[in-house]
């Protein structure tokens, strides 16, 4: 009712006006990207996460060039050094440089977060898509499976896993993902149920497309925005979970630094070297906050009200 129709020129061949041909095609992805770009705060948060990821990947470079320390180098002469010239963010109870450990810790924390999200998304999407598309008994069985997985107390599982073997980043990611895929599956299933009703799905069936084609080429791209939002928000959540697990000693064990296990011992030293708690804590806080802000920005950019 209100608002311009997008293309004002006539569409009869005889009266074709060529103005529209000059503009580049405006796909939904382009439009969403434009909207995201306009969101300064969201973009800043995204850039921050990107910078952290780069730092994490290039940790050895930063170690060598910036701090000149290795994360596990013990130097008993310089324990509890205050933040300053020798140790930019101070050193811990074994004289290890905090900044270097934070940089290398980013590898672990971000690495586990991204990997977990990737795993949970892959498994969850597949299950949710199949359940939502086929419905019936397939849906019932799969959703009961999801319910079961979601009902398992995660902490119990983590404790069990850590007793059985020492988790490294990959196995930790797998463990956390094994608990997290359930909510992704539910999310995707819900989205599939709603997209499935739309006429274009029926139209594609009417031309004879197979189910697999429908799911991959039509349902998946339309479900993707929801997944992207879930991923953006999920990264922050996983960082917190992973940090908590490490802190409790159930995750990555020292001496491999992670933001979580840097806090484990630091609590004992809180009163005289509070910075040992503050810096990892602030890092986690800022990263998770950035992830949430970026996630919200992405959700607004993909706003379904503006779809098609």
């Amino acid at each position, binding site marked *: 009712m*209100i*608002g*311009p*129709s997008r*293309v*004002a020129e*006539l*569409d*009869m061949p005889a009266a074709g006006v060529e103005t529209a041909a000059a503009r580049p095609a405006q796909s939904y992805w382009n439009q969403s990207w434009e909207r995201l770009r306009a969101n300064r705060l969201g973009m800043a948060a995204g850039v921050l996460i990107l910078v952290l990821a780069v730092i994490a990947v290039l940790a050895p470079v930063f170690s060598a060039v910036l701090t000149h320390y290795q994360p596990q180098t013990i130097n008993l002469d310089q324990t509890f050094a205050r933040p300053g010239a020798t140790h930019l963010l101070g050193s811990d109870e074994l004289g290890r440089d905090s900044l270097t450990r934070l940089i290398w810790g980013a590898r672990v924390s971000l690495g586990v977060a991204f990997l977990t999200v990737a795993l949970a998304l892959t498994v969850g999407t597949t299950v949710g898509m199949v359940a939502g598309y086929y419905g019936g008994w397939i849906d019932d069985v799969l959703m009961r499976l999801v319910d079961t997985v979601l009902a398992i107390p995660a902490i119990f599982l983590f404790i069990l896993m850590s007793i059985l073997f020492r988790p490294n980043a990959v196995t930790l990611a797998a463990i956390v993902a094994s608990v997290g895929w359930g909510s992704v599956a539910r999310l995707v299933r819900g989205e599939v149920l709603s997209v499935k009703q739309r006429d274009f799905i029926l139209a594609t069936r009417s031309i004879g497309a197979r189910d697999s084609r429908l799911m991959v080429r039509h349902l998946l791209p339309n479900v993707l925005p929801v997944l992207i939002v879930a991923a953006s928000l999920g990264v922050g959540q996983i960082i917190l979970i992973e940090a908590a697990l490490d802190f409790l000693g159930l995750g990555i064990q020292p001496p491999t630094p992670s933001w979580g296990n840097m806090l484990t011992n630091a609590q004992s030293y809180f009163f005289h070297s509070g910075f040992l708690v503050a810096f990892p804590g602030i890092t986690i806080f800022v990263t998770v906050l950035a992830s949430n802000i970026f996630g919200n920005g992405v959700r607004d950019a993909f706003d379904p009200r503006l779809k098609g």
Partner: protein
Amino acid sequence: MTQPLLEVQDLHTVFATRDGTVKAVDGVSFELLAGETLGVVGESGCGKSVTALSIMRLQRPGRIVSGRVLLKGQDLTRMSEYEMREVRGREIAMIFQDPMTSLNPVYRVGWQVAEPTRLHHGWDKKRAMQSAINMLGKVGIPAPESRARDYPHQFSGGMRQRVMIAMGLTTTPEVLIADEPTTALDVTIQAQILELLRHVNREFGTATILITHNLGVVAGMCKRVVVMYAGRIVEAGPTKDVFAHPKHPYTWSLLRSIPRLDAEQHEPLKPIEGMPPNLVDLPSGCSFHPRCAFKVERCARDVPALLQVGESQRAACWVTQAGTELQGA
């Protein structure tokens, strides 16, 4: 000439959008006399609904930037929100297109119909409910006492629209604005509701503005009609005259493009070429000129004013104002 009940004078309402300013209502003027049913006809985007909402001062997020709306001489555009609340529901009532969403699903129907009188007349619960039940009966809802205790989802589309009409009439307003009241209804139910509106108009004497895109509905319900296109009125006059000899190319083309139930033979339809205009980027001069079969040079330059053409009609068209008859193959 009796003083018109409602007068809209050169109303302008705009919306700010990402792509620019949309001039939803671009200089609209018309009158509504007491007791009459006026049709406002046009397609989507022509501004008919926004005009109605502007009269009720419900046009947000749009803004009324200029013009006046006079109800019995008082300018509604100048009133405070407080004063406007007295007008809405009491002097002017509005019913909307979609009966599914116009009623609050969590309240009983009787309560909702009773609400206006409680608000505006300050009646107590009992009196208001009795009046509501009474009104439900008048609009043709069988067993109104028990139905008043039901919730909206227990009613069909047609019944809900009757409830809306009842709700609008409980305060015996002077003006009823019906915005596409039957568009969402089946055709046999539409006939029932239109019959009800006719009956209401006869019995209560409520002046009605009937907004619709359906020319057939206008033909059967309204003595006078106003045709809108791209935010402006392009033609106005008695329904009989406007339909028999339209004085604006848009009206003329529209009438020829509609398949008629009573057509004897299969005549190919004569569609209006092109597409409705982009409201952010209106064509220069007359907004209709890119699609007009009768245009002359002036049409692309100057915006035509709504002037008298023929005995009883007004049309905003340079060509017909100059005396040309609209005819074609």
